[in-house]
C-alpha cells in the first residue's frame, strides 16, 4: 500500500504554518547545534536530523495532547516536533541542570515523560517495545491516546521490530510505527542489510495495515499519519508507516558521509522537506515572503536565546550528584 505524495483535502493555513514552523525549527536546531558541537561545546554523540524533518513534522502535526511518542538516537527532530522547549533541549546538550535530563542523558536520551515523550534511545530498535508498552498502558487505562514510535530502516532487521509490532497487533493497540527509511545505517546501505527494501511489507506479513509514504513530503506524511491515528482511535491499530527519506550528511557530526552517492544526495536535496514545507505554506497557505522571513527570524532568535539560557545555567554539582546517586 502506498499513498499519493500530497494531500487530497486541502490542508488548513494553520496546519501549513505549524508544519513550516516545525520543520524550520528543526533545521535551525540541527544546523546551529552542529556549530556548537564543532566548537567543542556539545560532547558525545550528535546525530543530526537534517533532511528528515518532514517526518517528525508531519507525524506530530497529526497527533494531539495526551498522545505519546518514542524516538531514536536521531531524536532532536521528534522532540521539537512534539513541542519541546528549545531552552531545555540546548541545556541538555550542554550538560546543564536546566536540561530535560539535568545533563544526565544528553542527545541520545532527551525525554519528557510528563508530556508523553518517552525519549530518544541509544539502542537501535528499543523505542518500539517501549512505545508498544505505552500503547498497552493506555488501552488498559481506557484512554484513546495513540502512541507513535519513530524507528529506522536499521531497526527493521532487529528482533524487537517483529516481537513488539506483533504484540501490538494481537492486542489491537493504538500504536503507529513510523519507519524512517533513510536507506543507511551509518555507512551500510539498506540493500546490503536486506533483500526486501520495501520495509512496510514486514508489517503486512504479520497482519498489520502498512503504508509507504514520501518522507520528504511533510503534508503527505501528515495525511497518512492522520489516517493511521484515526484507525488507531477506532480500534483498528496498530498501523505501520514507512517513510522514505535521506540524510543530508553523515551519520553523526563527525562522519563525513563520503559513502553517500552525490547524485542520490542531490536528488533528495532537491526534494528538501523544509523547502517543501515552506513552499506549501506559501502556495497553499498564502504566506508571503515577509511572513516567512519573520517566522524564520523568530526561530533563529529562539535558538540564540536558548544558547544564552543554557550557557547561563549551571551543571549539577558533585554534591547533588552524590545525593542523586544514592540507592541505585
Amino acid at each position, binding site marked *: 500500500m502506498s499513498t499519493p505524495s500530497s494531500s487530497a483535502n486541502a490542508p488548513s493555513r494553520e496546519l501549513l504554518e505549524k508544519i513550516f514552523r516545525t520543520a524550520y525549527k528543526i533545521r535551525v536546531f540541527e544546523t546551529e547545534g552542529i556549530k556548537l558541537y564543532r566548537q567543542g561545546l556539545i560532547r558525545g554523540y550528535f546525530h543530526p536530523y537534517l533532511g528528515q524533518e518532514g517526518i517528525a513534522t508531519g507525524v506530530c502535526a497529526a497527533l494531539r495532547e495526551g498522545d505519546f511518542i518514542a524516538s531514536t538516537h536521531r531524536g532532536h527532530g521528534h522532540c521539537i516536533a512534539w513541542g519541546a522547549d528549545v531552552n531545555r533541549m540546548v541545556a541538555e546538550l550542554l550538560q546543564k541542570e536546566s536540561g530535560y535530563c*539535568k545533563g544526565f542523558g544528553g542527545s541520545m536520551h532527551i525525554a519528557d515523560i510528563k508530556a508523553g515523550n518517552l525519549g530518544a534511545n541509544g539502542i537501535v530498535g528499543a523505542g518500539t517495545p517501549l512505545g508498544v508498552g505505552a500503547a498497552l498502558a493506555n488501552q488498559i487505562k481506557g484512554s484513546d491516546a495513540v502512541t507513535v514510535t519513530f524507528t529506522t530502516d536499521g531497526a527493521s532487521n532487529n528482533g*524487537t521490530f517483529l516481537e513488539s509490532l506483533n504484540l501490538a497487533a494481537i492486542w489491537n493497540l493504538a500504536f503507529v510505527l513510523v519507519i524512517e527509511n533513510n536507506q543507511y545505517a551509518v555507512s551500510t546501505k539498506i540493500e546490503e542489510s536486506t533483500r526486501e527494501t520495501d520495509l512496510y511489507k514486514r508489517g503486512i506479513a504479520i497482519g498489520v495495515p502498512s503504508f509507504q509514504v514520501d518522507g520528504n513530503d511533510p503534508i503527505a506524511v501528515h495525511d497518512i499519519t492522520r489516517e493511521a491515528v484515526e484507525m488507531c482511535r477506532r480500534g483498528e491499530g496498530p498501523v505501520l508507516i514507512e517513510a522514505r527519506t535521506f540524510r543530508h550528511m553523515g551519520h553523526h557530526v563527525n562522519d563525513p558521509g563520503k559513502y553517500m552517492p552525490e547524485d542520490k544526495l542531490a536528488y533528495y536535496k532537491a526534494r528538501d522537506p523544509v523547502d517543501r514545507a515552506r513552499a506549501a505554506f506559501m502556495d497553499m497557505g498564502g504566506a508571503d515572503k515577509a511572513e516567512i522571513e519573520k517566522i524564520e527570524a523568530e526561530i533563529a532568535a529562539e535558538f540564540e536565546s536558548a544558547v544564552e539560557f543554557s550557557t547561563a545555567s549551571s551543571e549539577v554539582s558533585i554534591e547533588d550528584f552524590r545525593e542523586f546517586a544514592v540507592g541505585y
Partner: protein
Amino acid sequence: MAFRELMYREALREAIDEEMARSPEVFIIGEGIAERGGSYKVTEGLLAKYGPKRVRDTPIAEAGMIGVGVGAAIAGARPIVEILYVDFAMLGMDMIVNQAAKFRLMTGGEGRVPFVLRTQGGAGGGVAAQHSQSLEALFYHIPGLRVVMPSSPADAKGLLKYALRQSDPVMFLEHKHLYMTKGLVPDGEHIVEFGKADIKRPGKDVTLIAWSNMVPTALAAAEELAAQGIEAEVLDPRTLVPLDKAMILASVSKTKRAVIVQEANRRGGVASDICSIIQEELFYDLDAPIEIVAGLDIPIPFNLTLEKASVPQKSDVVAAARRALHQDPLGLAAQ
C-alpha cells in the same frame, strides 16, 4: 496476629490479586498465564477475576514482553511480566539492563519504571543447563535494578506487594522448588519493605547468610549444627538490592564468623560481593575467613546425581560452618 498456612505460589497469587484489586494500573502478561493459570499456577483465577485486558497471554517473545512491560511502566502503569525461567530473561537482557535500569538516571530522575519482572530459577529435576540457572548476580551488578529473592510464602507475598507499590524496576526471582512449600502468612495487609533482612533462626556462634532456596538448606544445616552444640544464626537478606548491610554486619559482629550460601556458581556470585563488604567493614573482628558455599562453576548437568553435586547441600554448609569455627579443618565430618 492471625496467620494462615499458604503455599508460596498461593501467597504470590494473593499478592497479585490484592494489588490488582487495589490499583487498576497493575496488570500481568506472560506465556500461558491467563486461561492456563501459569506454569506454576501462580496466576490461576486471575483471568476470570480481572478479565483479558489485565491478564494476558503472550507469544514467545521475551525481549518484546519485557520491553513492552518497561514501556508500560514508564507510561504510568504497573506491569508484572512473568518469564517462565530466569534463563529466558537473557533474551530480554537489553531491555532490563539498558532500558529499565537506566531510565531513571538518564532522564535526570524524571522517568520512573515501576516494572516487576517475576521469574524463577534454580536447579532440580533434571531440566538441564538452560532451565536451571540462578542468575541473580547479573541483575545485582546492574545499578538501578532491585533484586528480590523470597524464601518463604510470607516474604513472597509481602515483598511482591511492596514491589507493586514502589517505582523502580524489580527482578522478582522465585525458585522452582519453593512453589509448593508451605508457611504461615499473616492475615490482612501484609507488606515487607525492601532492604530489611530477616533472621530466620537466631544464633550466636556463626552467621549463615542465605537466600531463596538456600534458606531451607541453611536452616537444616543449623539444625544439624545445633545437635553438635553450635548455634548458627540464619540470616536471609530477602532483597539483595537493596541489601541490608546493617543487619548483616550486626550479626557477623556478634558471631565473628560468616558462611555465605548461594545456589549460583561460585565465580562472581553475590556471595563474593557480600564477602567483600564484610571483610571491608569487619576485617578486624573476624575470627575466621568468610566461607562461601556455592554451586560449582559449571553449567548444570541433566544427570540428577551430577546436578545435585553441582549445587550446595546441607552437608556442605555444615562443613563450612565447622571450618569457620576451626572445628574439623580437614573437613572429615563432611565425608
